[in-house]
């Protein structure tokens, strides 16, 4: 399960095919850990909201700054107030999906 101290980054992004690549590509290229992603359309579908589960470590500030530079990212907010155990439910899903 999730051992480290995690936090959630909330993003509002322009909704088109390449956005997810830009976000996940940034994490792999810069060597940041990304523990989980939740994503969904908002409003008229021109934007999406994403929740990134990340380690709360010395890289966090740098991650936020790099995310802010991405062209398709409209806003970046660190949400320590959010309940990141929400992501644990995904782990339940993964368990359900496993063959018995």
């Amino acid at each position, binding site marked *: 399960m999730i051992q480290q101290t995690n936090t959630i980054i909330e993003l509002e992004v322009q909704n088109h095919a*390449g956005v997810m*690549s830009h976000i996940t*590509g940034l994490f792999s*290229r810069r060597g940041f850990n990304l523990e989980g992603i939740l994503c969904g359309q908002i409003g008229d579908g021109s934007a999406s909201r994403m929740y990134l589960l990340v380690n709360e470590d010395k890289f966090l*500030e740098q991650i936020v*700054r*790099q995310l802010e530079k*991405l*062209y398709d990212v409209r806003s970046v907010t660190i949400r320590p107030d959010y309940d990141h155990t929400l992501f644990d439910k995904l782990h339940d899903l993964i368990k359900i999906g496993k063959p018995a």
Partner: protein
Amino acid sequence: MPQMNGSEIIIRLLEKQGIEIVAGIPGGANLPLYHALSGSKIRHILARHEQGAGFIAHGMARSTGKAAVCFGTSGPGATNLLTAIADAKLDSVPIVAITGQVPSSMIGTDAFQEVDTYGMTLPITKHNFLVRSAEELLCVIPEAFRIAESGRPGPVVVDVPKDVQKESIHVDTLSEMDSPVHPKYELDLDDISLFNEMLQKSEKPVLLIGGGVIMSDAIEQVSAFARKNNIPVATTLMGLGCFPPDDLLYIGMVGMHGARYANMIMDETDLVIALGMRFDDRATGKVDAFCPNASIIHVDVDRSEIDKIKTSSLSIIADLSTALDQLLPTVEENMRSDWIEHVKSLKKNNALQPPKISDPYHPIHLLKTINQLADPDAIYTTDVGQHQMWAAQWIPITYPRQFLTSGGLGTMGFGMPAAIGAALANPEKQVICISGDGSILMNIQELATIRDHDLNVKILIFNNGNLGLVRQQQEYFYEKVYSGTQFESLPDFAVIASGFGIRSQKLGNEPDPSNALKEALDMKGPVLLDIPIHVAENVTPMVPPGSANSVMIGE
């Protein structure tokens, strides 16, 4: 203009953008684009390899500061462009690369010459677009230029499927290009007073300036600032040309191949004012030991550079010239006699050492001779290796955009195509490409492009038959095991050049190469000289990779 297809829209928008030259190579997936180009006043430079086209764009962009354009087709055309795009990312060069892509309906089918250009260029661009319709081009193309040139410049890729290039749409008017909107960057009054407080408290401040000074056009402000408060000025490789090299305050390039005194001064300073630089590891050496006694003030337009490598006590996120305009009137005059005297004596006692031998073929003597014979405003490009570092050390670079070099990516093969781009964008200037026998072979095909346009490019190959800078590291750090660094066959570059129709000469028979160099530099048009240098000559001082800058090998 009622009906236009995607290609015509691209070309018309490039014209409106003021683009006069495009470098590229046509292929199956960008045929419509080339068809539209044929009807335009834009001059096409046919490179012989897409990487050449990419670096020709570098030469134009780096020598002018304006975004430059290159074209490539899908698949190998795009993959060949990647190195030049990555190079532009690391050195913050505004390049717009427009690539053809297979038709939308065939994307994802492993079609002929299909690669995922969007996916591959994602980590090496400032931003990239895969265009879905001709309509989108109307905003994507101007936006690509805005992104490439605004803030911290960088490369933008626009991947255009063939059907989008052919799609015809009704266009009422092409939107006028907005001149880029520069944010105001009002400095915080508290920051200004903290800045001055730190500066007043400092007894040994240093300005450390990088390529951002050139991009922001802040040369005069930096100079005024340094002089007003008598602050010594150190530069990174990318910052060469921002401060007069013969100035008392100038301490030159820091880092792996910086002068001994430059690294010593950085070791002593108690305040580093870092302007438009990003603490690259080649400049800092071991980061923890870089400027160990100093507080840091970091001014940069890119917020993500702040505290990325080195934590600063004060950071100002702003365009440099705007920031300095606001800081300058608040800064007090200061003689700093003790510090300046000390810097002077460090400079005197730890200067770069000219060769002990008088051999005119010694690379340092060669560079001095070349510099004496060259036009004072000649543009130098380099490849990557020993010749590059000798050039950075020994050619006094007097103007911004006079020294074009691949700093961050360190791409061998950069020099000649970059020289082509510089010559195209500055037809009145002499362009000198300092290269090595390793680097020149990496884009030698562009000799044909030079011949096509009879460009005033002088290619000077410092030939030691080895990958010299790698060999040097093997000598110092790998027990003199010269694995893979010595060339077994030595091509005759003079014969190769004459095969391309370019005047050339192999030097070495005459005891003094000065006359041949003079003749080559005085002549209009392209020349290639193959100049033998001794393989045992190393670039010093050298900080071993991973060591503190205080550890320097050689003089």
